[in-house]
Structures are given as C-alpha cells and as structure tokens.
C-alpha cells in the first residue's frame, strides 16, 4: 500500500493499522512526515505522564462508609413507600384491575356515606313556629278572638255605664288588656314565628275572657 504526505492527517485521524504501517514506511524516506509522525506519537507517550495510579488506602473505606449510610437512609425511605413499590410490581393489567376495584369501593363507600349522612339537627327551639303551625295558631287565634269579641259585646252595656265601682275597675282592666293585646299583636305581626309572643297573647286573651266572664257574672248577681 502506498501513502503520500497528503494522506498523513487522514491516517492520524482514522487510519487503519495497515495504513499506519504504510505511513511509517513513507516517513522513513520523508523528513517532514517523519517529524510529524514522531511528534504525533510523542503526544501519546507524553500522555503517560498524566497517569498516576498510586493507591489511596483511605479512599475505599471512606466510600464504603458513605455507601452504607446512603443504603441505610434509602431503606428508611423505602419502608415509607413500600406499599407503593409493591403495587408497581404488578403487571399493567393487574394495576388497572386494582385501580378499577379501588374506584368501585370508593364509589360504594361514597354512596353509603351519602345515604347514611347525619340528618340535619332537629330544631328544638320552641320559640320558633313553622309556617304550617303558624297558620293553625293564627286561625285558632282568630276564632278565639271572635268568640271573645262576642263575649265583649254582651258585657259592653254594663261596662260603658258601670253601675258599681267594681264594674268601673273591670272596665279599666279591660282597656289595659286591649292595649296589651294591641301591642302584642303588633309585635307578633313583625315576628309571626315567635311562639313566645303567641303564648303571651293567648295569656292576655284568657285574662280578657276571665274578666268578661266576671263582668257577666256580676250582672247576673
């Protein structure tokens, strides 16, 4: 095989052993190529100066210690995530099936919790009346009021012209009770669900009923 000076760099870069032999043969008779080949080889020889494989007795024990500590830490971390890593060992098919089963369990649990959710706390506050109860109270109240008005109509002649001091006192008491009834009705109008007001109103009506009954009894005597 014949090589020329122009082949030198190509052989330096990627020459085959045969090409190198041919280049060295050429270099023996070419001073320039001889110098170049020598210098090229000299770089490889010089590189040996950078090779120092002297032993470092403390290095491996140091590395070993660091590796052992790292392994210990890794094991501690691994324990925390062990169940996850177990899952990843299953085939994708099994992982999908497990995920599906988990979703079904989750859905059933969610449904059960929804169905058996705690009922809203019962309103034990008797002072508040619901709309249906309120209607009943109001209608009963109206009927009661009408009945008392009939009673008042029967007692009115005696009260307008009281023959005795007692009747005059009854008359004054009834005026006070009517005033109280008016006040309570006004308040109940603002807060119709307040049962306490309704009880007070009922008590005043009862008192008015008793007073009217006493007035009528007094007339009979």
């Amino acid at each position, binding site marked *: 095989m014949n090589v020329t000076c122009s082949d030198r760099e190509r052989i330096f870069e*990627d020459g085959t052993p045969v090409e190198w032999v041919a280049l060295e043969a050429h270099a023996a008779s070419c001073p320039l190529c001889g110098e170049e080949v020598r210098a090229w080889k000299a770089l490889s*020889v010089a590189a*040996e*100066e950078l090779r120092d494989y002297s032993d*470092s007795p403390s290095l491996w024990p140091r590395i070993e210690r660091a590796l052992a500590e790292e392994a210990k830490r890794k094991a501690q971390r691994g324990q925390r995530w062990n169940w996850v890593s177990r899952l990843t060992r299953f085939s994708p098919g099994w992982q999908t099936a497990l995920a599906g089963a988990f979703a079904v369990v989750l859905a059933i649990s969610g449904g059960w919790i929804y169905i058996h959710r705690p009922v809203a706390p019962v309103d034990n506050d008797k002072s508040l009346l619901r709309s249906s109860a309120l209607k009943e109270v109001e209608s009963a109240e109206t009927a009661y009021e009408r009945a008392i008005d009939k009673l008042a109509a029967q007692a009115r002649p005696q009260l307008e012209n009281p023959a005795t001091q007692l009747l005059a006192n009854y008359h004054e008491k009834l005026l006070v009770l009517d005033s109280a009834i008016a006040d309570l009705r006004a308040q109940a109008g603002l807060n119709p669900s307040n049962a306490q007001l309704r009880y007070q109103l009922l008590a005043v009506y009862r008192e008015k009923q008793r007073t009217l009954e006493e007035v009528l009894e007094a007339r009979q005597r």
Partner: protein
Amino acid sequence: MGTMGLALPWRARISSTPRERGTRVEPSEHFAAGASPAAMEAQSEDAALAAGCRSGDLRAFERLYARHGARMKNLARNVLGNPVDAEDAVQETFLKVQRSIASFRGQSSFVTWTYRILINTCYDARRSRLRKREVANEDSAETPRPEPRAPGAHPSLRMALERALAKLTRHQRDVFLLYEVEGFRHAEIAGMLEMTKTASKNTLFQAKKNLRQMLEPPRSSDAETR
C-alpha cells in the same frame, strides 16, 4: 505557530524509547469480527457488576472500585487538578451510581455509564469551585491548579501538558484524557461523552493538533520544508 510559553523541545521532553502504544489503533473498529472471548468476559463482568450494584451489594461496589477506582481517581485529578477534589468526585460518583442504579437500562455498559457520571460530577465540582472563587473574589481563571503527584519521568513535560490541556475545549480535553491517558476505546468514549465514535476520533485529532501547536517549538525549517 506561537508556543504560548509552553514549548520545550520535543526531543528534550519526550523519551526517545519507542513505545508500543505510541500510536494506538483500534483494530476492532476497522475489521469486522465476532466478539472475542475477552470482550465476552468483560461484558459478563460488567453485567455482574451492574446486577450486584443494583441489588445494593457493597461487595459489587468494592469490585467496581478495585477495577476502576485508580483510573477514576486519575481521570478526576486530571480534570479537577488536585487529588483531594478528585477523591471527593470519585466518592460522589459511587453515591450517584448507588442512588440511580435503578434507572440504568443497560443501553451502554455499566462501566461506561459510571465514567459518564464521574465526568459530569467532575464538571459540576469545577463549576461549583469556580462559583466559590468568584464569590471569594479570587482569581477566577478556569485553569485548574495542579498539585504535586507521584513524580514521573518528565515532570516538566507533564506540567507543560497539563497547562496545554487546560487550554483545550472541554470535549477535546476529555477525549484526550480518556483515550490517551486512560486508554479507553473510541466506542467507549462515545458512550461516556454521548457523541458518535467518529466525533470522538475527530475530537481527538483536533485535540492532538492543538496540543502539538501549543507544545511544539517554532521550527525554523517549517517554511522551507513545506
């Protein structure tokens, strides 16, 4: 060509004793051949090392160190410039191998993968050292400061070479160190530096050309002979 103050006469610096691997040529890259028994053995040893390290066996790491520790430390020292940083880099490399062995898929050899980690670790350490120097407002020259090591046959040559290497590009320096100093093949270097085999050969050629220019004394006869 200027010599940038590094030149010493070649003949004074380099041993005239012929050296067998003065110009290393890789026959396996030029001749198609089946895997040799030695290559098969190396491959199975590599697989055994990887399996041992993956299982967390400290003896596998010890075997890796016994086989490659000195070479790893030498490479790290040549990149970092001092043995202390080199030892730290080797230790860090072993830890990184241990941490990320699960991600090793065997696309390259285990040893190649380990050296890739080592090289990256060395450059991380270099960058970190440079940042520290900048913070400390010190000289931020990238040139590593070589520290004393076992005396060679040509200490002045070694120093000149170290300075010249520091002026090469990172890839040129890496390929030169891996090929010429550590004796890796281009196929292995390609795996370590994530480049093609051809690129590795070309980079080595450029590196040697540049080193020659930096180390070679001016030749008076240059113009005449050319």
